[in-house]
Each structure stands twice: as structure tokens, then as C-alpha cells.
């Protein structure tokens, strides 16, 4: 597919800020089945951008803005050519070995219910791959999509216990469960093309999980949709959990409150919608 991505993040401040410093992880890198043809970051004010790589291999861009500033819009847009690889991830920059992704993190620390859940499901399956598919399906069933529960810093255990959450909670629970079973697992932040609502703005970016199996390498699982990512997905950043891969994190100097708006549009530029 040929996907056009338009990702806008806007902040409005209740009083002028003296300075902004932000870390953006919004630029996808090419890998097999994902060819970044064109990509740019636009800021609607006088800003300085500096790009580098973080330890996970993500493109990390620093944004520096001097005040006084009352509002800022960061718009990321680009074109990506994708192929359906049925969730198989390869050809990405991998500075860290799979083993690292066994490490628990603040938002993916498995608690007893998740541990029980993972081991119970594993006992009913005859292979690691089918176990992961079963976990994805069961988490999709268990954690109801509920945007009102979206909250930074909500761990896997909480979403699992409350049985509601958003895509990052599904991803965190999947990661925690996979690690319990001894499989390296990581968080992916990215974009998804929605054939059912191709013209609508999405109010947030998407997230899913990748799990590593010795026989296959990294395999992507999207428990929020019970689906292994295909050519409708664009992978942007990875990490142990949301915090490592968050599209934006920042600090401002100036006080007051802020209002955040996010709009993501993913359009398909070629052909009709495939069967999903």
C-alpha cells in the first residue's frame, strides 16, 4: 500500500511559556515491508530541531522553542510504501539483542493475575506461536476498549484488573504476558490505516506489541484489534514500554495549564481497500 500520514499535535497554553523542550519520536525508519518514501516535521513557529538515534535505534528529534509562546503545532507528514508480511518484522535497526526485551519495565511489570492468565493460556496450546495468538485474542476479549480510561502511567496490571483500556494498555498487557512466558517482547508506537473510516481523523496514534520467537524473529501482535499487523500499519518507534516509545514528551517553562489536541489521518493513495 501507499499510505499518506498526517499527524498533527497542538498545544495551547493558558499563559505564555518562556521555553519549550520536547523529545519527538515521530519519524518511521524503513525496514522490510515498510519503505519511507518521504517524511518531514513542520513546526508553526520559530523552532530548532536536532535529530539523533536513541538506544533502541529510534529516530529521536529534539525540538527547542524560545518564548514567549502561547501555542504550538507540530505536524508530521510523509508517505510510506508497505507490504503485508503478516506480522513478521525484519530488516529493522536492532542495536539491542532480543534478550534485553525480557526485562520488566514500570508499565509492563507482570502481577499475579497476568502471570496466571499467561500460564493458563500457554497450558492449552501446543506451540509458542499459537500461545501468542491465543493471548492476543484473549486480551482483546478481556480488556474492553474504553477511551475514558486513557491515562499516562497506567500499568499493565491495572488495565488487566479493570478490564478496560486503550491500545497502549492492550500492548502493555500483551508484553507483560509474553515476558512471563519467557518471550522477549516490546512496545511499538505507530499508525494504522482504518478501511472502515478512511476519511476520519483519528484522535491519537496507535500502539501494539512485538514478540520474539527464536524460530521466527520478531512478530507483531495488535491485541487492541486482535490482528497481526499487515500493510495497513506503520511502525514508528519501539521500546520496553510506552515511555521509551512515546511520540512526544516535553517540558515547558512558564506555568499555567495546557490543552492538547492530536489528529492523525492515514490515507491510502493507491487501489481499493483489501480484505481485513
Amino acid at each position: 500500500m501507499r499510505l499518506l500520514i498526517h499527524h498533527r499535535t497542538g498545544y495551547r497554553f493558558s499563559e505564555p511559556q518562556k521555553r519549550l523542550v520536547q523529545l519527538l519520536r515521530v519519524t518511521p525508519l524503513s525496514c522490510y515491508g515498510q519503505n519511507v518514501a518521504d517524511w518531514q516535521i513542520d513546526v508553526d513557529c520559530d523552532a530548532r530541531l536536532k535529530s539523533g538515534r536513541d538506544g533502541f535505534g529510534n529516530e529521536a528529534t529534539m525540538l527547542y522553542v524560545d518564548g514567549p509562546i502561547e501555542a504550538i503545532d507540530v505536524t508530521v507528514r510523509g508517505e510510506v510504501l508497505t507490504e503485508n508480511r503478516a506480522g513478521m518484522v525484519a530488516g529493522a535497526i536492532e542495536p539491542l539483542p532480543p534478550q534485553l526485551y525480557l526485562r520488566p519495565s514500570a508499565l509492563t511489570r507482570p502481577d499475579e493475575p497476568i502471570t496466571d492468565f499467561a500460564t493458563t493460556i500457554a497450558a492449552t496450546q501446543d506451540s509458542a506461536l499459537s500461545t501468542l495468538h491465543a493471548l492476543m485474542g484473549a486480551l482483546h476479549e478481556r480488556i474492553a476498549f474504553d477511551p475514558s480510561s486513557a491515562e499516562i502511567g497506567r500499568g499493565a496490571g491495572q488495565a488487566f484488573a479493570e478490564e478496560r483500556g486503550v491500545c497502549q494498555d492492550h500492548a502493555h498487557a500483551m508484553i507483560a504476558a509474553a515476558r512471563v512466558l519467557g518471550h522477549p517482547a516490546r512496545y511499538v508506537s505507530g499508525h494504522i490505516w482504518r478501511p472502515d473510516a478512511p476519511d476520519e481523523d483519528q484522535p491519537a496514534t496507535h500502539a501494539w506489541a512485538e514478540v520474539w520467537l527464536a524460530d521466527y524473529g520478531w512478530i507483531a501482535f495488535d491485541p487492541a484489534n486482535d490482528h497481526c499487523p499487515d500493510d495497513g500499519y506503520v511502525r514508528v518507534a519501539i521500546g520496553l514500554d510506552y515511555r521509551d516509545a512515546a511520540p512526544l514528551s516535553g517540558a515547558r517553562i512558564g506555568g499555567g495549564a495546557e490543552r492538547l489536541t492530536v489528529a492523525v489521518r492515514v490515507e491510502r493513495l493507491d487501489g481499493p481497500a483489501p480484505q481485513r
Partner: protein
Amino acid sequence: MSGGKAFDEIYGSDAAGAREEFAALARWIEETPATELERRQHAAEAAFRQLGITFAVYGEEESAERIIPFDIVPRIFSAGEWARLQEGLEQRVLAINAFLDDIYGERRILADGIIPPELIFGNPQFRTEVSGARPPHGIYAHICGIDMVRTGPDQFFVLEDNARTPSGVSYMLENREAMIRLCPELFDTYEVEPVDSYPDMLRETLRSVAPRGSGHEPVCVLLTPGHFNSAFYEHSFLADNLGIELVEAADLEVDDDFVWMRTIEGRVRVDVIYRRIDDDFIDPLVFRPDSVLGVPGLMAAYLAGNVALANAPGTGVADDKAIYSYMPEIVRYYSGGEPKLPNVETWRCREGQALQYTLDNLESLVVKLVDGSGGYGMLVGPTASKAEIERFREALAAEPHRYIAQPTLALSTVPTLTAKGVAPRHVDFRPFCLTGTNGVTIVPGGLTRVALREGSLVVNSSQGGGTKDSLILAGAKRRQRQSQSQSGQQQDQSIDRSLLQQEGGMSVAIGLGQAQGGQIQKLGDTIQSQSLAGPAHDSSDER
């Protein structure tokens, strides 16, 4: 409780009298009346209290700051003993730096099977945030405080490698000043290597690691968490003595991946930050998002190679207790020779046989949490109650990988002033090793910590330990050099001179002091959700 009779550093193992070189010190101890020793000790402690050399004890009800007790009887090393220690320390800190450069780079030591990879990748001290990035000049642990213990005339062991933000050097300097003032006769008797060159050495080390091409004299600053920190006295003391600015996070800003210090005369670019803030708190964008102590963007400046951080982020993976047991292998691997300073024998409870041995011998072992510090989370078998031992037995069985065990060493003793006169007390030793592009420099001295309770082996200041001055006797060469005797008066003057030189040699650093008015607040992170926007939480009140 330490089994056999401990080795005494002045009197040796047998009761035959003082070791030859230290006979004069023994005579001083014996001939100075206890009341006079007490008077001098009180005078020293009064001076420390006035200076404000205090520390806060964690977990104490009234978190009143108190001074670490000072003992007037010094510890002493011969020139030969020191020379051997120095060689071993140099080898050790070179290996630590080589290890860090390897582990955050090529990871040859893992490929060669020297260390189990899970010990690195599963270790929270291995910082993914700096993996693949090399600090300016490839130096990571610029300041190491290597904790050592001794059990005999030539038996020195490394107990712990402090490669993050080791503290205590101000005690080394202040203790010496007090001793020169209060016991000048000792410095007439012995030619003692001076320690007051430490600030100069540290400044040279810091300047040497400034990123290349800044086009000006390197600007170094000391970043402190602030005056609530238990080591704040040391931060301000060192900044003063180095002639560099003492700054808090609000005094620094990052722009265009460079670090700037805000001053009343405009901003000044910073090349080297001697930071006394833990990794977790130095940059809220990368490490703990709730940190108010850090500088947003600092890690970007570091990763871009535009600022040196001393010590570099991620050095904790080298002084972790789980890694400690592999230090002999690490030293051998990078130095190509045998370790000159051995480790204390260590059983890794993650290994089945070692765990069994530990469980079978809990009564005689010291068991430590791999990620504990300051004497917390530790079992000292010989003095522990039955209930404590059982508690550790259960904990070990449940999570063996979190523990190591070591024999209870008969730590050496040094005569110490007690309520009942001078008596032997157990000690350890922390020398401070500096590594820059100018090589390894080790000031001839260090911090001696003493367990003031009779028989106690726990020297941590948080557990009732005290400190002593540590005298290193000058070698023959040095004695020739400074033929005139060192009186207390002259020593004081030389300290003053070195301070003047520092001020003359300083580059920029303009008065700044108070934090700027602006408050920093965190921008709400973007919530990821599949259809509706989650509320963007402004976590400003967490900061």
C-alpha cells in the same frame, strides 16, 4: 564475633608491640592522655558542626542532620603499602572504564562468554538510553570510590566499586585539615603525603574530558540536587575548592543540543558537568518523568557529544553487586594480567551450588542484596538472630538471583578513641581514583570509615560508623623533595596558596547562585488510543 583475632594495623597480629614503621604513632597514642585526645576530638567535631558537614540518616524518625563522628586517632599506611594499593587501583579503574566502553559499544566481553549476557541485559543498571553512544574521549567513570578492606599485612580486598556518584571526599580533606591543626606533632614526626591537591587533580580530570572543539577554555560546573540532599555540604565544598559554579537544574538549559548556564551576564556554554544527581533524575524527558532535579534535554546534549557528564550515565552496571563477582574476570580480560587487588570471595546465589553453600552456612556468611546499598538489606550471619536468618533463608529460596554471599572477614582494626579509652575498632577504606585523558590520578589518601561499636563490622555512616584521617607516609623520593619539615602552619598556607591559584586559573563561571524564577512543567504526553482521544494529563503537579 569475627572469629580469630583481627589484624591490627598499628600493632600487627601478635602482642609483640607496634609494627616498626608505626612505633612512633603507637607511642603518641600511648603517651597522649585520653583526656587530651578527647579535647582535640571535641574541638574537631565542633569545627565540623560549625562548617555544617552534616548528613541525614535515612529512615531515622527525626530526620535531624547530624555530623559523622570523627575519630582523632589516624590510620596510617607505609609508602610501600600505598604503592601496591595504587597499582592495583589503577588497574581496576582502567578495567572498569574499558568494561563500560565495551558493554555500551561492541560487547566483546559477552561475545567471548566471560559474563552471562542476562546479567547485563536483565540489569536495570544497563541503561538502554546510552547504549551505542560513546561519551567524549570514551571515558565513563571519571571518579571512582573503591571500597577496600584488609585482613592482614598484605591482604587487601576490594569490597565494592563505587562508580556512580561516590561521596565522602570532603571528609578526607576536612579530616586532614583538622588533624594538621589539632595534632601538628604527628606531621613533625612523619612525612605525610598531602591530600589537598585533590581539588586540583579533579579539576584537571574534568577539564581533560571536555568535548573537543568547543573553542574556549572548558567550563565545568557541579550539578547538585539542592540543599535538601544529604551530601549537599560536600557539593558546595567541592565547587568552592574547584573554583567552579555550583548549579541546580534550574540554572541550566539545553538549546540546540548544547548545555547553557544562565548567568546575570547572559548564558555561558557548559562543557563538563560534575553531576551529583543519580541517572534516574538527570533528564525528565528520558529518565524519570517526575524528576524536578533534572535538566530537560540534557541527555540529547550528552548523546550528541556536546557535553561530558562525570560520571557518565550508565556506569552503575560496573559497580552492581551482581557484576562485582565477575570483576576479577573483567580485570583479566581488559588488562591481560592478573588482578593486583583481589575481590572478597563471593558466592553468586543465582548459581545452584553457590546457593546451596550459602543456605548451609548462613550463620557464618554475610548475605547482600545485589541491588541494595548503605548497609540495608544485608544479613551478617554471625550476629544475626535466628529469626533474621530464617527470614533470609526464605528470601534466598524465593529469589536467589537477587543475592550474593561473602565470608565474614576478620576486618583489620585501628586503635580508636572510645568511652573506655583507646581500643581497636574495625575499619574499611575508600580511596578516590580519577580518570581523564590525562590518565589515572589517585590522591594519596582516602576516607577511612570505622565501626565505632565494639566488634561491629558495619562501617556505614547510616549505621553508626565514623571516620578517621588516613595518613600515607611519603616515600624516600618525596622526603628528599620536601626537606624542610611540615608544620601545621605551613600546611595551612599551602592550602591557601592552592586556592588562590585555582581562582587565577579559572576560566569563566560568573556569579549566578539563585535559581531563576521560571518553573518547569511537564507537557502532557500524547495519549495513544485506537479511536477517541484520551484526556491528556497534565502531570505538572507530579513535578
